[in-house]
């Protein structure tokens, strides 16, 4: 890679200036994005599984006034890609069974599949899954750990996570002195 300083400055400036998708208000716009995500055929998950994963990830890291959430960051798409090429069949099976367990739990609690539930009902299911976070026992509780771990990894390594949410200041040319305090 031959990059002059000028090119490098331009490249990093461009990366920072790249328009991030604006925070999406809940409701119509959110639904439109979900529909858009669903239209992109998943590689590993079935379309209903993907829609469920997309919604779950966005409940774990939602859009707020500060920054967009997991859906905008493409968390489900990243997980789907990684699993599609994975050689770990045990792990792949856990995702299928985990997502199924979410619907089973939702059926038990509200008599309907997760995505058929109201926002309050969905929250109740996820809250129950998260209750055993420290010491998971049920299938749904184990799946919550796995789901959250991947959501965290995918979100905070995404463009949205690094720039919009964390507002990371590094990986750009630093003019003059570094930030911080002198030791003496």
């Amino acid at each position: 890679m031959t990059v002059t300083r000028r090119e490098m400055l331009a490249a990093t400036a461009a990366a920072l200036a790249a328009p991030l998708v604006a925070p999406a208000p809940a409701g119509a716009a959110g639904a439109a994005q979900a529909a858009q995500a669903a239209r992109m055929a998943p590689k590993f998950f079935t379309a209903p599984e993907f829609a469920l994963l997309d919604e779950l990830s966005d409940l774990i890291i939602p859009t707020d006034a500060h920054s967009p959430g997991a859906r905008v960051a493409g968390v489900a798409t990243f997980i789907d890609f990684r699993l599609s090429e994975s050689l770990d069949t045990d792990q792949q099976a856990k995702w299928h069974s985990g997502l199924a367990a979410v619907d089973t739990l939702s059926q038990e609690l509200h008599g309907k599949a997760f995505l058929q539930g109201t926002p309050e009902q969905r929250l109740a299911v996820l809250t129950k899954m998260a209750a055993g976070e420290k010491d998971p026992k049920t299938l749904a509780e184990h799946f919550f750990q796995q789901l959250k771990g991947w959501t965290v990894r995918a979100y905070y390594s995404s463009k949205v996570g690094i720039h919009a949410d964390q507002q990371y200041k590094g990986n750009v040319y630093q003019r003059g002195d570094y930030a911080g305090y002198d030791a003496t």
Partner: protein
Amino acid sequence: MTLVKTPPPLSQEVDLSKTYDAVVVGSGAAGGMAAHVLTEQGMDVLMLEAGKKFDINQIGQELRSMQWPYDHPRRGDAPPGYHSLSFNEYTVRNPPYAKGSTFKHVMSYVGGWGGSDYVKNILVDEKDHPYTGTKYAWVRARLLGGKTNIWGRLALRLSDYDFKGKTHDGYGEDWPIAYADIEPYYDRVDRYLGISGVKENLPHLPDSLFQRPNKLTSAEVKVRESLKKMGRVLTPYRAGVTTDGLKHNKYRSKCYGRGACDRRPGGCDIHAAFDSPTGLIYPSMDTGHLTLRTNSTAHEVLVDKNTGKARGVGFVDTVSGKSLEAKAKVVILAASTLESARLMLLSRSPQYPNGIGNSSGHVGHNFCEHVMGPGVTGLVKEMVGKPPTLDDGRPGGFYIPRFRNLKDKQPDFIRGYGFEGGSGFGIFPGSANGTPGFGAQFKKEVRDHAGAFIGLGAFGEVLARYENYVDLDPDEKDHWGIPTLRFHYQFGDNEKKMCQDMVVAGREMLEAAGIDVIGTDDQILTEGWSIHELGTSRMGTDPKTSVLNQFQQSHDVKNLFVVDGSSHVSASCQNPTWTIMALAWRSCEYLAGEFKKGNL
């Protein structure tokens, strides 16, 4: 910017019919320094490197230091089929760890740091490079420059507390040199390669000739101030990184604080951090006196039957599989502490039935390193909710030098340990994994706490003991049919007691600074984890109990030198790379003088 992106042409065809003045086995910190010093003295040097050759453009494409995580399809992970060994695997299994693995490629734990794709061609494939014996996390990098391509950059000097350790506390052996002997060579290494840091005037951690230091975060300043009251020091990371630039080196840029250092298993594609190829080898090639042959795995030091002297090196071309010989008047081993010992043990002949240079029986013994694992994490309350700052735009955070068994005498252990640490914001909020819950509250909590943590991890001296050693496995062979090493190595009671103290002292220091300790780790990591293995061919004045003299010259074979970490008499608790290079400089200067006088 004067950074040169194109190296001098590397020789593809190496003349093996000629006899070189010296052959150097290995191209890391030690081999690179040997090449630098000897070529500067006008000697014709052939360097053999077991691994492949990444030229300056290729290594940049491999490390991709500036790549954003989201621009990598797997966010830095290696493609399917690669596996990095975990602490658990090292703990529950025995070497060879990759034996029977269903993965296509198996790497050491370093691949698992979150960036395995950036080192998959740098670390060895454990499947091709087995070893046996006791549990050991052996990290190896086979390519031009060796482990200097991915090292941690902490560049410290040793002191007479180390060189004269036996005089101080009665344990082990003193080195055959004192600090005054090596000080001028540390100075030369500082000036030639560049080092950043702050002078502290500590007798046990001598200052270098520093370039511009890294700065501290407010939390680190707070701990520094608090430690002063305890008579301890927190100093900015002494990094083997040029922060002001090096006018004499056209291959290296100065550090511009961009901050990729800590989110990868290492590697700096602008070469502000020292690496052997740009720091030492390319400049040596510019002299016209260095010939390089890569993919050349040495398996024997050849001996002249009449004189008993070394006459060259037998090696395998790992591409063609052919066995070849390199002829030289002087043989210099710099293959790493463990590989140099293996090579000496492999070099058995009628004159040297126990391996070359091993009349003492000490080759492979007195093997020592640093013990690590124990550490403390603190939450800096006043940093919660603060806007982000660039805190990982530094080659390292801070270092807390040894404070045990200097003037005091600890009841439970001898020698000491230092802490490496860091704090502040990074590219990835690591605390997210441990923050409970989900939703808007979780997200805000992660954001608010991202820069509020400070962490310390200790590195302690492992005592050199004769009974900790490596030898050759009688049965196991590597991919090229070369017998492998077998480990007989375990931490002892002194290390375990020291590790208990690390946790107590770490907690005490954070609490004294008013920082909440939110986590302690007392788990000792597997032997080998520090990647600071040392001592397998120690120096000394007595040929019965040491392998090398004070110039890293074999007591038995005067034209054989071992200039890497093998020669260290004790491990100290201070990181070894800078000492390896200062010693190699001193020894090679002596070597060149003796060579010119016809004494070798």
